[in-house]
């Protein structure tokens, strides 16, 4: 239903022929400019943004006919590696500061990265919670099948912090390569619990239940976004970042379970 509303809004904006960007400090909203962004925009975004960014991309495309927005969703660290190896990306949205730092340290970001959202970890259990998980302490139970993200990826680093803050020594059965892989195993009912982002629990719908963990406040992940220095399409990149940080973009992020600054 929210998708309908989104499409409807986009259509109205398109028909009215005026950009609806609510960002007051922008000198000109993108579609006031007849030339406007066009061509292809390539956005490299953290896997956890999979359910929000395509909608925003469609809105931008609706505002700018002739613009084609492409997404590459993967673990932030994999994306950072791809960017430092010369992948032709316009925008990088990372799930934590340290992977953004990999890109900025290499001098590959244009300007300062801006934090546009934050995510906290939540315990995800299969629908019905068959193992009766109630909190972080259950992750130490040997008889449960438990998935954590690998410490090399942001959700794993956050999980380590949260577990340390709670004083829990988890007994995981697997260290997943990214947060969506951990979530998939919960959805399939193959693990009894996993520490994933709140947004992933929201995205999984009825197949997964989320359990809040107070200790998660110890490791809130900030999501920075930056236009890249070698962006093939800097104009469209700036428009996308602006949309993400606009009221409209922030609302979409909030609906998906993110916290917004």
């Amino acid at each position, binding site marked *: 239903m929210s998708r309908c509303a989104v499409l409807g809004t986009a259509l109205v904006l398109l028909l009215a022929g005026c950009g609806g960007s609510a960002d007051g400090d922008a000198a000109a909203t993108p579609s006031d400019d007849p030339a406007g962004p066009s061509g292809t925009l390539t956005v490299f975004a953290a896997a956890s943004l999979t359910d929000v960014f395509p909608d925003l991309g469609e809105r931008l495309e609706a505002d700018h006919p002739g613009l084609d927005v492409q997404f590459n969703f993967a*673990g932030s660290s994999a994306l950072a590696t791809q960017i430092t190896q010369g992948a032709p990306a316009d925008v990088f949205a990372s799930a934590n500061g340290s992977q953004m730092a990999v890109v900025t340290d290499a001098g590959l970001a244009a300007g300062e990265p801006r934090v546009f959202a934050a995510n906290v970890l939540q315990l995800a259990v299969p629908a019905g919670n068959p193992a009766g998980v109630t909190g972080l302490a259950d992750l130490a139970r040997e008889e449960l099948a438990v*998935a954590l993200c690998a410490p090399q990826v942001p959700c794993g680093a956050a999980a380590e912090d949260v577990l340390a803050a709670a004083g829990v020594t988890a007994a995981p059965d*697997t*260290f997943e*390569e990214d947060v969506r*892989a951990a979530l998939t195993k919960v959805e399939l009912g*193959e693990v009894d619990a996993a520490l994933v982002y709140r947004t992933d629990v929201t995205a999984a719908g009825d197949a997964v239940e989320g359990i809040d963990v107070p200790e998660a406040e110890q490791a809130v992940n900030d999501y920075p976004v930056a236009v890249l220095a070698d962006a093939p399409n800097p104009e469209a990149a700036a428009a996308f970042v602006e949309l993400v940080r606009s009221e409209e973009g922030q609302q979409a992020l909030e609906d998906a379970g993110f916290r917004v600054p």
Partner: protein
Amino acid sequence: MGTVRRREPGVPLPLLVPAVLAVAFLVLPLAGLVVRAPWGELGSQLTGPAVGQALRLSLVSATAATGLSLVLGVPLAWVLARSRARGRSVLRALVTVPLVLPPVVGGVALFLVLGRQGIVGRWLDQALDVTIPFTTTAVVIAETFVAMPFLVISVEGALRAADARFEDAAATLGADRWTTFRRVTLPLVAPGIAAGAVLCWARALGEFGATITFAGNFPGTTQTMPLAVYLALQQDPDAAIVLSLVLLVVSVATLLLLRDRWLTRAVR
């Protein structure tokens, strides 16, 4: 290398140019790894306990997967090549599906059958208290699923190319089909089986997608070298290059050794 070396007038140009290009295409990425390898920190990277663990697990599970593929795959290849049953072409297409299936999808499919909630796995879990996912067994199963078709295709090809008159002769001399298979067919296609086994082993050794999906990633139990390489790449690309080189050197060395000890003898 060449055993047939009489009157060799050289390679015709239309073959030589693409062949050289092929070599460049296949070898340059490896050269890239060697050039970029942080030789200075090689020692410290290699002595980490995780490397030995992952390497041992890779070798053991790839070998087990090859063994399982031989036990199941050679008979399957025989059925595909020799039986007159209808629907063989459909069967062939079905069993080679893992060749085209993205391995991650293969991993999910394995969950649906052998996972805790899977068709067979649910029963295993409840009746026998056996859970397969996230164990070394799951690694072997995932690798076998992906690698066995390579063996089946190779052996089937060898069986088709083998001279069927030897089998006919054995049959006229009174051997039953099982005896004929053991005493005549198997020795006849041994080089094909060896080549298929090597291919299967190499594929199993490099397996990533099905393994990380179905078996997960846990050091010592399910973290094979390709998984270790992938995760190292997330944080420390230099370590990933070192790990890749280790896997490369070990696999090439093993294949060369096998070739000397076993393949050439079989070919003769």
